[in-house]
């Protein structure tokens, strides 16, 4: 199983916060394609977290600041994001933080808003967004091949 083009398209709409398009494309996906899209979300989260914080000398402080700013954008986001879980998930990418104790549902609920926040902050244009999704798709395909 690999990540399909439609899954990538729906993911692009999600990151552009075009949820209408996301819902439309998502309705056309099969169950396997949805699972593959979940792998794509996790891979994209890893890629963006690595790009955003790996090169920093004080990655942990920047992660804390980023999560705080994201939660302050609205009540929904503040309710949705747990600061500890958010920081640990980001640290798991740039360090050896162990996140095995966090459930996959909780991880998924944090991956999506954190990923959108990083994409919005990075001000990626369409080409950059496509390149990032291509890299994430390659990683996701590798993960799916292990299963």
């Amino acid at each position, binding site marked *: 199983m690999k990540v399909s083009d439609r899954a990538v398209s729906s993911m692009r709409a*999600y990151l*552009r*916060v075009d*949820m209408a398009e*996301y*819902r439309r494309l*998502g309705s056309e996906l099969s*169950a396997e394609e*949805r*699972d*593959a*899209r*979940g*792998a794509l*979300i*996790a891979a994209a*989260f*890893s*890629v963006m977290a*690595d790009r955003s914080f*790996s090169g920093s000398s004080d990655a942990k402080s920047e992660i804390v600041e980023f999560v705080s*700013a994201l939660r302050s*954008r*609205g009540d*929904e*986001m503040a*309710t*949705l994001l747990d600061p500890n879980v958010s920081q640990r*998930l980001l640290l*798991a*990418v*740039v*360090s*050896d933080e162990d*996140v095995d104790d966090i459930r*996959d*549902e*909780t*991880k*998924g*609920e944090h*991956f*999506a*808003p954190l990923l*959108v*926040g990083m994409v*919005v902050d990075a001000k990626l244009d369409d080409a950059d967004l496509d390149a990032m999704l291509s890299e994430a798709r*390659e*990683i996701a*395909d*590798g*993960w*799916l*091949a*292990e299963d």
Partner: protein
Amino acid sequence: MALDKVADDHRDRPESLDAAESSPPDSGRAVVSVDRQGHNRSSAREYLAALQAQRKEIRQRDQPGPEPGREKPDQADPSASRDAAQGGRRRVDQSAPAVPSDVDQAPPKKRPPADAADSSGRGDTSERPDPGADAQDRRTASGGDSIGAERPARPEDRPAQATARPDRQDQSEAAEADAHHGSSPTSRRVTDRRVPPTEQPTATSTRGEQVADKDRYDAAVTATTVAEPGSPPDRQRDSDANRQEDQRDQTAERAAMKRAGIQQDKQAADRGDSAADSRPRDVRQASPDPAPQGADRSQKATQPGSGTDGSRTADSTTGRRVREADVKDAGRRVLLTVTKDASSPSFIVTIDQPKPPDSKPDDGGGRVERVRRRLVRDFGKVDDAATRVEQAIEKTMGPRPTGVRSEVRADSTATAHDVPPVGPHSGSATTALLAVGVTALTVFERIRESIQKRRSEKE
């Protein structure tokens, strides 16, 4: 008569032989060599020339200097003459193991052991019709049969002049004292570096023991050198101890290699395939089979395909034989290939560990590896969770609403543009007319108020 004179000169003055050797052939001194069978040497000159050539050869061989603890051949132990008669003492130059040196190599055949008197060879008089041969035999100590008339110049057949003919007076005295005491001043241990250890005890005779097989004896003596102290029984014990020690070492080596498993072979292969070209390796070394590994590595390496697992293929056209064995290393699958090329006597061992299909070289900090680390197990749950939170994301980070509900977000992350109030939410024509009417009414009322104000001012 001449023989007696030479023998007496040699016995009384050990340097007489040197003088005889150095004397010109026509000096008038005649030396006749008689072997045990009574064959007279036709020419003393020939014998002396051969003797001199051998002595020169030995001097050249011994020029680098003796090793510590080793005696020069010229300074032979006087007791060696007695030892030679007993058949157990041989001193051979180790530096030239392939060529026997001037040692008392004559085997003590047909000679009673441990009899000092027999060192003069008088016990063989029955084989020597000429009594004058006694002098020569005294000089050779025991080697009458080694001085064959047909082979006068062969070193291995030379008599034991080096020991029976001491070059120095003190050595002669020491020999005499040794003979009186009946004990060897030095006990030597014979170590054979060419003959296999298993053959050494039988090839080198012990004190007072006759050796039946002359060839084996000569082979052992030729490859034997005098090294450390130790009586012949000690040599036997030392040899056994060395074998036991070797066995213990091999056992320990096998155990260590068993513990190390394939790691050792991998390291050996990593040390260089070039090294593998010169040193064959056993496939079973890397095999999980706990069979004996290190002891017969080279032996097994000469028998490709004799391992326990793996497949073997042969190319009859090139004579190239390839054996592949799959071995496991810490759960990882490793392909071990042993190649034997018919044109080369060596083996080539290659270990190939297949990489993951999507593996990329690390950038040094483990960054790529961290990124590729899988954070979740069930991707379906991630997709479901992302769908659940889409509304919150849309509300928080989506495009700004338009119309009367539009607002300016503090983070300015909305991508929606401020559109003019057109469309279904921007107002209908009635609304516009109403607005125009209201405006017109307002204007009309303002005009009317203005007119009324002017009238009141006039009145």
